[in-house]
Structure formats: C-alpha cells, structure tokens
C-alpha cells in the first residue's frame, strides 16, 4: 500500500474527538450561553418590540427573525470555534505535535473544520428548538434549510480556521469577528427585510455577503427571500471557494505554521 495514498483517518478522528470533547467540557460557554442570548433576543425583539411591528412578507416578526438569529450564531460560533481550535495549540505550543505527525493538510482541515462545523450545526439546531418554544415555525424547504446550514457552518469554520492561523495575539483573534462579522450580520437583514431600507442603503447592503446567506436561509423556512435563492447559493459557494483557496495557499507556503 502506498503510504502517501492512504488517509490517516485515525488522526482525523483523534483531532475531531478532542474538539468535540472540548465543547462538552465547556458546555456552559459553548451551548448554554448562546441559548440564553437567543432567548433574550426573542424576549426583546420578538415580544417587546416585535409585537408593535407589522408582519413582514406575511410572516410574524418573531418568526421572521428566527433564520437570521440562527445565522448570527452560526457565523460567530463557527468562526470562534475554528479559530480558537487552531489558535490555542499555536499559543501554548502544543501544535508541534500536529506538525510532526504523519497528517496531511487535508486531514487537518477535515478534522478541525469538521469539529467546528459540527458544533455550530448542533448549536443552530438547539436555537431552532429554543425558537420553536416562542414562535410558530414552518420550514418549507427542509433539504435547502439543512444545505444552507451545513454550507454556512463549513464555510465560516474554514474562515475561522484562517483567522486562527493568521492571528498572532488573542486580540487579533477577536478582531475580525467583532469588527467585521458581527456588524455585517446585524446589517445583513437578521432583524429586517432589506426591502424596508431606503433606496441607496438597499444598494449598499447588497455588497454585504451576509445578506445572501440570511436571505437564502430565510427562503428555506418561509419561501420568501430578499434576493433570489440561486444568487444566495452562488454567493455562499463563492465565499467557500475563496476560503478554500486561502487555506490551500496557507498550507502550500506553511504560512505562520511551519515558518
């Protein structure tokens, strides 16, 4: 058997298991806190403010924000899970073991991104379950709902992985999620339809990639979208392709890994 052709699946499994174990060890931080914050959004936006907002596209406001809230958590958690998972061993130095192991870059990616994506998908489903307690939900296109869920989790876990490799300090690790991703998500139509915006802002918003994710995801729930679903899917795939290209470059050059 050519050792180069065989995948080291045991290594993938070993890393994946450690990553999942970390989630269960920090269950408070990784599961319970997002559930609490989601519930708070429902209390504030859904009930307190939402009760004074008209239906959007024929959907009650509380139900309207569910896909956006799931996306909000999915994006931030995918990024923070994956970036922390690779940054932490870099920070404490235990990454030596990963680099000295007979593991290919593809296997490293599958394990870390797989672990991070799994966690955020579980989280997304928990939020969905929590939301179902507050508002009546319907999912018109379950296949596409799952497809967008998985695709987004994987894409942003990859993005988080890139940030984790790039970051040299904890501050940098927080920088991108805090300064770029969170604003883009809030401005990406989590809490409103972009049709509600005045003309010029509507155009500007179309440059925000998160708009397409949320719009497509919301379509899978209610069959209504701000932009066409094909465009949403296309934009998601483009971002996935960009992340894959960056990761491929990182691994080819050893950027900030094998100096």
């Amino acid at each position, binding site marked *: 058997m050519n050792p180069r052709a065989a995948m080291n699946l045991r290594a993938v499994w070993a890393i994946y298991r*450690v990553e999942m174990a970390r989630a269960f060890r920090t269950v408070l931080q990784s599961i319970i806190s997002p559930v609490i914050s989601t519930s708070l959004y429902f209390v504030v936006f859904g009930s307190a403010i939402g009760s004074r907002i008209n239906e959007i596209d024929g959907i009650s406001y509380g139900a309207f924000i569910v896909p956006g809230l799931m996306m909000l958590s999915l994006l931030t958690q995918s990024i923070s899970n994956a970036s922390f998972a690779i940054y932490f061993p870099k920070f404490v130095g235990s990454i030596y073991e990963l*680099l000295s192991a007979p593991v290919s870059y593809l296997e490293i990616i599958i394990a870390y991104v797989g672990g991070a994506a799994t966690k955020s998908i579980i989280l997304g489903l928990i939020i969905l379950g929590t939301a179902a307690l507050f508002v009546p939900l319907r999912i018109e296109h379950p296949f596409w709902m799952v497809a967008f869920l998985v695709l987004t989790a994987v894409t942003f876990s990859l993005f988080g992985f890139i940030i984790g490799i790039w970051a040299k300090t904890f501050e940098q690790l927080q920088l991108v999620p805090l300064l770029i991703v969170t604003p883009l998500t809030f401005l990406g139509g989590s809490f409103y339809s972009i049709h509600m915006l005045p003309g010029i802002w509507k155009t500007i918003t179309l440059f925000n990639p998160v708009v397409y994710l949320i719009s497509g995801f919301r379509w899978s729930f209610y069959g209504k979208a701000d932009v066409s679903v094909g465009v949403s899917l296309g934009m998601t795939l483009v971002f996935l392709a960009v992340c894959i290209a960056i990761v491929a470059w990182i691994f080819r050059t050893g950027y900030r890994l094998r*100096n």
Partner: protein
Amino acid sequence: MSSIISISGVTKTYATGFKALKEINLDIERGEIFALLGPNGAGKTTLISIVCGIVNRSSGTVTVDGHDIGKDYRAARSLIGLVPQELTIDAFETVWATVNYSRGLFGKAPNKDFAEKVLRDLSLWDKKDAKAITLSGGMKRRLMIAKALSHEPRVLFLDEPTAGVDVELRQDMWAMVRRLREDGVTIILTTHYIEEAEAMADRVGVINRGEIILVEGKAELMRKLGRKQMTLELRAPLTALPDGLSRYALELSSDGGQLTYTYDNQSDRPGVASLIRDLEAAGIQFRDLDTKNSSLEEIFVNLLRQEP
C-alpha cells in the same frame, strides 16, 4: 544501510534573514544514542524541528529510514517521536486522553495495554485520570515523553530533556533512554549539559552558529581532545619556578603551594615521568599528586574557543 537518519546539505534561513543553519551534513546510525551539543542559539532545535517536520528547510534533503521527509512525509514522520524542550500540553486534557490522542494522531490503532505500559514505565499510571494542568513540572515532562512514545517510534528526539529537571528524575530518564536503546530505538538528544552527553551518548556532534563543527565517538573525542592534568601538592611553597622547568609551562598557585601541569594525550610535550625527574633534580619535593582527565565540558569549551 546503517544510518537511520541522513541529513545532507540542509540549510535554514528564517524570514528575518537570520541564517540558523549554514549547511548541515549528518548521519545518525541505527540504534545509537547521539548527543547534539551546542550553546544556546546554535541551531540544535532548528535542526530537530526540520527533521520532525515542524519547520520547513530552506534547502537540502533529509531521509528517515530511507523515506524523504518531504515526498514521503507520512512514512518518515510515523517513525519519529519528539519530546520538545518546552512543556506544551493541552492543560485541560487528562493524561490518558492526551496519550491516546498522540497515538491516534500518528495513525496507530488504539492499544490500551501499550498505553498503560508506557504510563507505568514513566510512573504516571496513577495519574492517568488527572488533568495535565494539575501535574508537577517533572510529571509534565514525563507526560511529554509518554506522548512521544505512545506511537512506538523507532527514532526518539529529546530536545533538552533534562533542562530544569531534578537529579532523581534525570537519573530515571537516563535509565529509560538506555532501556529504549536496548529495544533498538535510536535516540538523538540535544543538550548543553555536557555531563548528559558524557553519561549517555555513543557519539557526540557539536554544533555552533549553525554549523556542525565536529562529529565523533564519545570515547575517541575524549581521547583525541581530552587533556590530562596533574596537580602536585608541594612540601614547601615556591615563590618562583626554577628556569630548568620552563619548558613544561607549569602553573603555580598564588600561595605557591600547588603546581599544575596540563598535557594532551597526543601532544609533543614531554611526559609526566620526565617532569618528575626534573622536579627531583631541581630539589622540589611534593607531598601528593593527582591526575584527572578533562571532561567533555572542558573539551567543548575549548572547541568553541578555537572557532573564529
């Protein structure tokens, strides 16, 4: 093929422009204990990191048991266990989990009996359920070794294994290294404690400023470069050395009570016998006489001094 690791023409220039390794050619023989000696910053860790795949080399080739570390990295790396200098463990993992993780990472099927044996050998078995963060420094060091041994490597790198380690643990570690060698494991250790190399190594390589300046069997090295020293306790203190003894380049202690004669094993300096005869002729009597071989440490310091 007797060498298990073959390093040829390896250089490393960091992005900062720092030339960490100039051109390294080195063969490690199968089953030996090789000590890589050098002062801090000489390039020891860089060299090890290149062989283990942690740092990319700038040029040159390295093979491990015939497998190129680039083209055939899986085969090469799976033979190697590495114990780095720094204590770097995921602090929140248990001893048992982290050892089994290491084995999995190297693609080996789980083997509880073997993992238990490794932990028992390193006196960590009763700590198997403890989190790494709760271990003492010495235990963490042993845990790092357990991780490196968990996948049954044929080559073990120990980077400064006994830095900051107490005497007892050091003795245990040396015993463990010898046991591993008996099992046919090749061991490469870096150190700047000469006594470590002296106690354990079969061969010694000296690296300084990114260059291997010498590779030699330990015994030959001691014989070739070793100096002998003879110290004479005089019956009566001398104020000055008689002219007749000038060719020996003797050193007189400040109180005049001790004479020291340093000579190489192979030097053309006159021998001890003639010195004693000449001392007698000059009427200098001594109470006691002591000779000793210089240690590797002194050899090492001399070598580095000779470097331009």
